[in-house]
């Protein structure tokens, strides 16, 4: 009995399920790096663009709208090819690293979606809040900062969490420019070992280990915020 268990454990430890892990772990680190840095920068970009879409200034509104529409209307795969090969190599002639290109692509792509999240959240705040802020004597900027933004930000949290999951999965596309993220590492591993099934199972499990807890936390936050 114990022998049987032992030998099962041995064969598991010896299988690609476990042996691929150190390799995949290197990929996971890059996946998380691209996602987190990209989303952080994307949030800044999205906040400006989202507010830009609500601006009274027609020029700012126009630019923001074009940005959002172009980015949302094209595949992220094309965007990253554009950034890595099209713009940096071909057009400007500067080589940026594949990792930089990946982070820029997530920033721009998530930025466009976050712009819509920001716009929607700010727009959903009752107009009376703005009026009350102005009636107290706050400037437009102060009203935005102290009254509208804090309330809107609360409403942004659930969709931002959702965007995190989407962007995390989008990073898998960057294997085409040879960024050593999770999927790229997986492919490298099974190309060398031919243990395709086991490797891909592990890749999926690693994604799920991040996405499922994230959505559980999100659901809790959502219930708590009551939005």
């Amino acid at each position, binding site marked *: 009995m114990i022998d049987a268990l032992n030998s099962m454990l041995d064969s598991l430890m010896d299988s690609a399920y476990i042996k691929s892990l150190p390799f995949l772990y290197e990929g996971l680190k890059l996946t998380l790096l691209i996602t987190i840095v990209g989303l952080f920068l994307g949030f800044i970009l999205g906040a400006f663009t989202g507010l830009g879409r609500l601006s009274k200034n027609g020029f700012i509104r126009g630019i923001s709208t074009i940005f959002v529409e172009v980015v949302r209307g094209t595949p992220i795969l094309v965007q990253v090819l554009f950034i890595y090969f099209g713009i940096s190599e071909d057009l400007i002639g500067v080589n940026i690293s594949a990792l930089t290109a990946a982070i820029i692509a997530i920033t721009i792509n998530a930025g466009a979606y976050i712009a819509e999240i920001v716009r929607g959240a700010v727009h959903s705040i009752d107009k009376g809040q703005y*009026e009350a802020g*102005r*009636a107290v*004597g706050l400037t437009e900027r*102060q009203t935005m900062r*102290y009254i509208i933004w*804090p*309330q809107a930000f*609360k409403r942004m949290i659930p969709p931002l969490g959702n965007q995190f999951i989407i962007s995390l999965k989008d990073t898998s596309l960057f294997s085409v420019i040879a960024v050593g993220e999770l999927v790229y590492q997986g492919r490298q591993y099974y190309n060398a070992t031919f243990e395709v099934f086991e490797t891909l199972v592990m890749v999926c499990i690693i994604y799920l280990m991040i996405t499922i807890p994230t959505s559980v936390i999100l659901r809790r936050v959502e219930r708590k915020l009551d939005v």
Partner: protein
Amino acid sequence: MITVKDLHKSFGDLEVLKGISAEVKESEVVCVIGPSGSGKSTFLRCINLLEDITSGEVTIDQDVINDPKTNINQVRSQVGMVFQHFNLFPHKTVLENITIGPVKVKGMKEEAAKEIALQLLEKVGLSDKADAYPESLSGGQKQRAAIARSLAMEPKVMLFDEPTSALDPELVGDVLEVMKDLAREGMTMVVVTHEMGFAREVGDRVMFMDEGVVMEEGDPQQIFEDPQNPRTQEFLSKIL
């Protein structure tokens, strides 16, 4: 205190205010009554430029507020506004709702602003609610907190836009009581209201508006007991 000259306001093709002239003297309480859609709320909102003025002139204490050179934030900080739906800031406590104006607009120290806020809360009967969030208050308490928020800026004029219309009937009294106190203390007030009892008892003057113009104005006694304009007569006969 407030002078309005030939005020026009259009929303697109719809002309809501068709030439309103009015004057409110210091310490005067003017009640604006009229059917819904008559433009009374728009008139009030034009007085602190929550609506852009299409043409005409509004002067508060010598400042022409719709002159582009006037600092409108400065003017607004001297004009308190109380809304039908209170518009308290839900992410701030009652106390913070009141102190934000003095602190951010006037640059007052937190401590000093807090002291003023606590005095005002006592005045409107909400001393025990300083640290509560608006959602835990009843409608009447919310409106009294909103009045305290406006008073914290030490306004020269208070504008009330149907302050009791969204309240359950049994909560109206407390709010009107606070407003009566203010009137007694000599606050200049413009009150858009459906509370005819309040208009009669507290108002120094009543303006009846309909279809974007002031149809009739006069002291409450005369308006309520001996209205001259047929529209006023019709309106009052419907509601009294």
